[in-house]
């Protein structure tokens, strides 16, 4: 016995089974002390937004061994990356390859892909933002061969992939080139 044990009825009070008024008068003071203890409980919400980024980056880095783009300082459009993930089962006419497109664009509200593989339609291939860090990704399965594409930021800004070779499209714009 340390001399600091709460009376069993006061423990019931702390458990919420009874109220202060249920305590006999001689235990009211001890009951009030117990309630002061509970009043000091800090129920403030804690937000850890960086956890999402840390988890997804860890998974991605481990899988790809090294992705310096994900660790680079966030810029408006910092970097983009195309990763060949895995060849899929060969199709009768052409082999298919799964590719991940990654763009770091922290300030973007939406990002999509437009290219030869979707008839340059910027509406049909959106990238998904992963976490709060501005990393946008899309995974596509494409036929082996050469494809041209660009990222479309917020529906208006066409951005070539700085991590891929580019060619002039003949209209003053640069298209990235992906050869699978």
């Amino acid at each position: 016995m340390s001399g600091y044990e709460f009376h069993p009825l006061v423990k019931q009070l702390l458990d919420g089974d009874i109220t202060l008024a249920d305590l006999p008068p001689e235990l009211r003071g001890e009951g009030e002390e117990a309630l002061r203890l509970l009043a000091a409980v800090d129920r403030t919400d804690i937000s850890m937004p960086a956890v999402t980024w840390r988890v997804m980056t860890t998974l991605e880095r481990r899988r790809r061994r090294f992705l310096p783009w994900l660790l680079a300082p966030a810029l408006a459009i910092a970097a983009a990356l195309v990763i060949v993930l895995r060849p899929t089962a060969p199709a009768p006419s052409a082999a298919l390859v799964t590719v991940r497109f990654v763009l770091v664009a922290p300030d973007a509200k939406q990002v999509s892909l437009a290219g030869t593989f979707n008839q340059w339609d910027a509406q049909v291939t959106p990238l998904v933002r992963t976490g709060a860090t501005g990393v946008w990704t899309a995974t596509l399965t494409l036929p082996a061969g050469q494809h041209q594409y660009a990222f479309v930021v917020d529906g208006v800004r066409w951005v070539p992939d700085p991590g891929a070779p580019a060619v002039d499209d003949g209209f003053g714009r640069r298209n990235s080139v992906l050869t699978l």
Partner: protein
Amino acid sequence: MRPGSQAADGEIVRAVLAGDRERYARLVERYRDRYARYAARMLGSADAAEDALQDAFVRAYDQLAQCKDPDNFIGWFFLILRNRCFAERRRNRTSASLDAANDVASDDRTDGGAESAERRRALQLALMELTPDQREVFVLKHMEGLSYTEIAERLSTSVPSLKMRMHRAYDKLREQLRDHT
């Protein structure tokens, strides 16, 4: 799924297992803050809590195929996080420092003034003097607002056993806080 509605946990788990790895971020987003407070109170440090959460989510991802009930992903994840927090405390048996208590005790930004902020810090320090089992039941009941029955289900134990732990915790906290209450 209707536009605007949120995918259920089980649906996301199954999609991730089928290869849509990026969707795992949705689960992390959904639960990271809910368990940030638990981890911070258990470990006495926001930094340690963030590390624990990250490790637990990565471990859960690695073991996702072993999640027998994808619709109860969060119950399964909680046990992984719990193990991580307990292991962390075993590695660092030293008592929490005042800095650690300051780290997780919220600032005096609400009513109550410096005195209540000091009481919060004192309680956080006192919590770190409890055994992890005692601290956990206190955190889950009085910080997370779970009932004894809910805690018993989550930890696969009995209500009387939890009450015994809690009542010992009350006595120990009273002793630790004798100068603050």
